[in-house]
């Protein structure tokens, strides 16, 4: 069947039936969430177990079940590999992984997929695992990719049932209260897994530091936790910043960042109370920096800045340029340190951030947001999931959630990367629909969604280089000959869910080239 964007999607994926994407806010629900497990306790119970194997045994984990993880340690995570290795040693098979994201450090999962320990993955796959899957790897069912808010919703609605949640924590007490803020190796908020802890049949906290009761802040709470395991290492905080925090030096990229910041400055939202999403990645960081400079010059105090927390946001808070940071995950050690000490640096869980089926999302309070793109198209659709050769490379992250919420969503992307054109007639995969994208900024100029003639007028008045998106495309296309094109077969490798649980696009296996 075809969804509202004209993308051809199957009616079933694996053994679940598919609901087609119908529009960014077309689906409205009311009713009740899925039930959470309930279990009484008595004083004096011991929850600490001597090893991961003992915990896995105690949870009753069986072949075919689902285990979940968070990604707050990013490239530095040591827990996912340890747990899956332990499962493999215990002879478990056919497990379904449900991580919030996977990274390059999890490349060895490919071996576990090949040997059948892991047979399904639901979650954002960055790097080698994604590449393996899109070559038609040995997964029993297509992967499902969800945004941060979409994953939370899928758990609460019962779309995904978790058997055991394994939660990495840099500090925990023996009763199960756990956090990522304190301890020797803090990683920042671990609230991505709050919903896992509440809905999983069993919850195991994995920590490298047992603190006296009560360990705080209370990110993960004792009432949700069955077992605690102490291991030597949960993660390397040095590696949470990997790749995302290099400030770009490229003149073309700095120009994109400058134009993106200038676009916000020229918009009606640039006034006291301005709220925006910063994010990581060279261009977003530079744009955030330029915007901060403009705010300082214009003596504007922002309401809140949202994102993966970064040094730049912490500096803005200290300078009084924003009142609050809403922080879902920390992108560098300075953000981690600030979270522990500054009450205006607030931990935000993905439910609060972006749960579509809730009575409010923090992203809906955003004025402006800077987001990246692997590809964009002339209809303003954005792809962040697949490479132009069809390979599944990146997760959705908060892309959909932020774009859907912000009053002015600014996509920053070069018009061309090496010989790869970035502006296409049709993106390889739709992650975020043009319906929620307002502005695309490239080094060659700013394209404004025809829905937003108001913004176009503001930009023109400010002397910004407003260009038609087709014109930008033609200019970039003039620099490189057309690419070879992958020919996709029928087999679905992954489904891309919109934040409401409908399917916005699917990734198909590449069968040949033309």
């Amino acid at each position: 069947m075809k969804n509202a964007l004209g993308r051809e999607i199957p009616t079933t994926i694996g053994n679940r039936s598919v609901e087609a994407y119908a529009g960014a806010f077309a689906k409205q629900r009311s009713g009740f969430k899925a039930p959470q497990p309930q279990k009484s306790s008595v004083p004096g119970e011991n929850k600490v177990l001597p090893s991961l194997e003992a915990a896995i045994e105690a949870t009753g984990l069986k072949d075919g079940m689902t285990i979940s993880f968070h990604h707050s340690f990013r490239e530095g995570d040591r827990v996912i590999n340890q747990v899956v290795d332990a499962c493999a040693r215990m002879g478990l098979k056919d497990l379904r992984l449900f991580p919030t994201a996977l990274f390059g450090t999890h490349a060895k999962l490919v071996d576990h997929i090949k040997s059948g320990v892991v047979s399904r993955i639901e979650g954002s796959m960055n790097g080698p695992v994604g590449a393996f899957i899109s070559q038609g790897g040995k997964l029993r069912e297509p992967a499902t990719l969800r945004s941060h808010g979409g994953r939370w919703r899928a758990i609460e609605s019962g779309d995904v049932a978790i058997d055991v949640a394994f939660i990495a924590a840099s500090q925990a007490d023996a009763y199960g209260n756990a956090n990522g803020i304190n301890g020797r190796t803090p990683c920042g908020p671990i609230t991505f897994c709050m919903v896992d802890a509440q809905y999983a049949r069993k919850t195991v906290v994995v920590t490298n530091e047992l603190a006296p009761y009560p360990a705080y802040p209370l990110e993960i709470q004792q009432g949700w936790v069955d077992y605690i395991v102490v291991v030597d290492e949960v993660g390397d905080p040095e590696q949470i910043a990997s790749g995302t925090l290099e400030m770009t030096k490229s003149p073309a990229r700095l120009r994109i960042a400058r134009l993106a910041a200038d676009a916000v400055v020229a918009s009606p939202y640039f006034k006291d109370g301005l709220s925006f999403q910063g994010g990581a990645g060279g261009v977003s960081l530079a744009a955030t920096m330029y915007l901060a400079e403009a705010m300082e010059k214009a003596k504007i105090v922002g309401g809140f800045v949202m994102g993966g927390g970064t040094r730049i946001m912490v500096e803005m808070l200290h300078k009084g340029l924003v009142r609050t940071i809403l922080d879902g995950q920390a992108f560098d050690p300075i953000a981690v340190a600030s979270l522990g000490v500054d009450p205006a640096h607030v931990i935000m869980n993905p439910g609060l951030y972006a749960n579509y089926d809730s009575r409010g999302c923090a992203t809906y309070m955003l004025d402006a947001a800077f987001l990246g793109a692997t590809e964009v198209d002339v209809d303003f659709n954005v792809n962040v999931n697949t490479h132009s050769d069809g390979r599944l490379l990146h997760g959705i992250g908060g892309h959909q959630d932020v774009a859907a919420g912000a009053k002015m969503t600014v996509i920053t992307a070069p018009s061309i990367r090496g010989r790869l054109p970035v502006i296409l007639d049709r993106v390889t995969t739709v992650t975020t629909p043009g319906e929620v994208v307002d502005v695309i900024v490239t080094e060659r100029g700013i394209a404004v969604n025809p829905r937003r003639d108001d913004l176009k007028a503001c930009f023109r008045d400010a002397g910004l280089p407003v260009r038609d998106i087709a014109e930008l495309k033609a200019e970039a296309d003039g620099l490189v000959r057309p690419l070879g094109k992958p020919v996709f077969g029928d087999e679905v490798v992954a489904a891309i869910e919109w934040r409401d649980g409908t399917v916005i696009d699917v990734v198909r296996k590449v069968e040949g080239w033309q």
Partner: protein
Amino acid sequence: MPEGTIVGSDAKGDCRVSLVPGKSLAIEVATEDPRLFERGIREVVEETLAKLGRIQGTLSVADKGSLDYVIAARVEAAVRTALPKTPSIVPAIERRASEKDAPRRSRLYAPGNNPRLLVGIELHRADCVLLDLEDSVPPTEKAAARVLVKHLLGAIDFPNEVWVRINPLALGGADDVREVILARPHGVALPKAESRDDVVALSKELAKAEQAFGAPLGSTWIMPILETAKGVLHAEEIAAADPRVAVVAFGAEDFTRDVGARRTSESLLFARSMIVAAAKAAGVQASDTVYADIDDEVGLAVEAHLARDLGFDGKGAIHPGQIPALHAAFTPSEKEMDEARKIVTAAEEAEAHGIGAIAIGGKMIDRPVLERARRVVRLSDRLSRKESR
């Protein structure tokens, strides 16, 4: 790849090309993802070879994400290195002519043999982009650089002026002229100009090249760069050497080395004032030296305003990030523009009524003030005609 015929590099945005002459043509392409890129690269290679004549041999391309014009330039340079009798490719271009006193508040330098740093160089709104074949290009890369600059000039539509800084004539500058003139830059910057003869010799080379390649005679401006003690002392004869001279530039880095000075605003004052006076006496523009610390925005702004106060019309930039500060310094203020317009209008009225003396509000306006006002009006008209960004 065999030694001696390799052109280009393995840097991002570049490609490495070699030609081993032989009895038949074979093209080998290596690229990050052949399925995506190989066909396009082959097309560019084949078209380029076709323009060069019947080339026989094994041509190898190792691509690192290079744009089409970079591939074409590398192929041409590799073929002409291996087969020196091969004629140059003449790009098909239409370039708008520039006026002798076009606004030149900023002249942005870009290294002529670094494709990655050349991408999008036309986008930063510099009044004048200066593609460099001199200091930023190592001697072994000079030949490839002039071909790359030619292809860049042929492929990219520059919104404002684009110039080429050649090498001194005796050090390859004549070859530079013969190559790049094919792609019709607005002007040529001559480094280390020290005498009238240097400029006249370049003018002759330009005239020869223009005639040989069918360009309108005299259509290429000259920017002598004064960066030695001798050059500064001969500023007057250099500025007035040839009608092609449109702007005289100062190069402080080499100048301080030549005279043994430390770089301060005081130590450069004589050279700067000399150059401004010489340029203005000859009726041409003066452009100040570059500011080397790209992270020091305050220092840049201070130096740009100093140069403006001295009478310079613009200043060099080594990074696009410096351009806004230069434009801020060298754009006349609203007040200056209004005053200038009033003076020019008063002069026109006086002329219409056959009155010799011009007065505004009882104050007499003398000739130099009127000339200055005319320059400001011309500049502001040209700036307002330019695309806003």
